[in-house]
């Protein structure tokens, strides 16, 4: 096994999913966003998005607050510090996979 192979960092399985990664990327920019916004931006179905948000919430990567905007129910998701750290670590790990070997 070469040194390069040893340098590969494990990818966080929770973030290594297209929809969850897209949600985290959006929240990284926005800080927080409501469910409808996330659904529109990711193009996901409500059911699938709910499931993935639940997983991110259970991992402590996001916080989900349910409330009302006027008379309409509103679900707002916010990225946590733990989520930001996990995202940064994930990107760092990705880089280790695609970095150009030293000559």
């Amino acid at each position, binding site marked *: 096994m070469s040194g390069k192979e040893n340098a590969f960092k494990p*990818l966080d*399985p929770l973030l*290594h*999913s*297209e*929809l969850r*990664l*897209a949600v985290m*990327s*959006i929240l*990284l*920019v*926005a*800080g*927080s*966003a*409501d469910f*409808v*916004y996330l659904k*529109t*931006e*990711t193009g996901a179905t409500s059911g*699938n998005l709910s499931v993935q948000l639940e997983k991110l919430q259970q991992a402590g990567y996001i916080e989900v607050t349910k409330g009302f*905007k006027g008379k*309409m129910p*509103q679900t*707002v998701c*916010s990225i946590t510090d733990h989520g930001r750290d996990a995202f940064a670590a994930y*990107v760092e790990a*990705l*880089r280790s*996979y*695609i970095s150009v070997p030293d000559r």
Partner: protein
Amino acid sequence: MENNFSAENSLRLISETIERSRRTITKNAGKPLILWGTLVTVTSLVIWLLWSKTGSPAWNFLWFAMSAIGIICGRVMDRGKEKAAVTELTRTLGKIWGWFGIFATSFFALVWIAWGIRSAVGIEGTLSVDLSMVILMMMGLCGTISGAVLKNKTLVIFSLVATLLSALFLMVMPGGSPLRILTFAILGIFALIIPGFILQNNK
């Protein structure tokens, strides 16, 4: 849609999503700029016209009516789009401009209260406060901060340059002249309407 995509694809997805999200947020920020820019410009022109015709600066009270119209229009626009993006950035922008409105209205009211007190007590001499300049600088500052928050150079540059040019115009115009109110038309067009359209058409 699960865990079978490569590292390259992951990084591409991240960068594309971040870019698209930033663009959506920036685009949404364009509409209020156009709304308020139009209101400020039209109000400024109307006040200038009426002030010039009648010689009464009391027409400046129309700014209050403009604020009310702007708030109502903003609510109506928000109601129309049920799928509005509610993000930390849009909330921050709302707070920046909300506090500007509170400061500007309070300061405007304060000047009239001071003027009333001076008249009642009989204090002579000019009331030495350039209300237009104060509001102009606050407005320019809020516009520039909004651009910085959105990380949008267009808005930062337009706000900064328009504010400085408007301030120069204000300094050149004689004190007490209705022409000074046109400063806000300049600012409305160059710091709000034009950047608003640029943000909205950002692709």
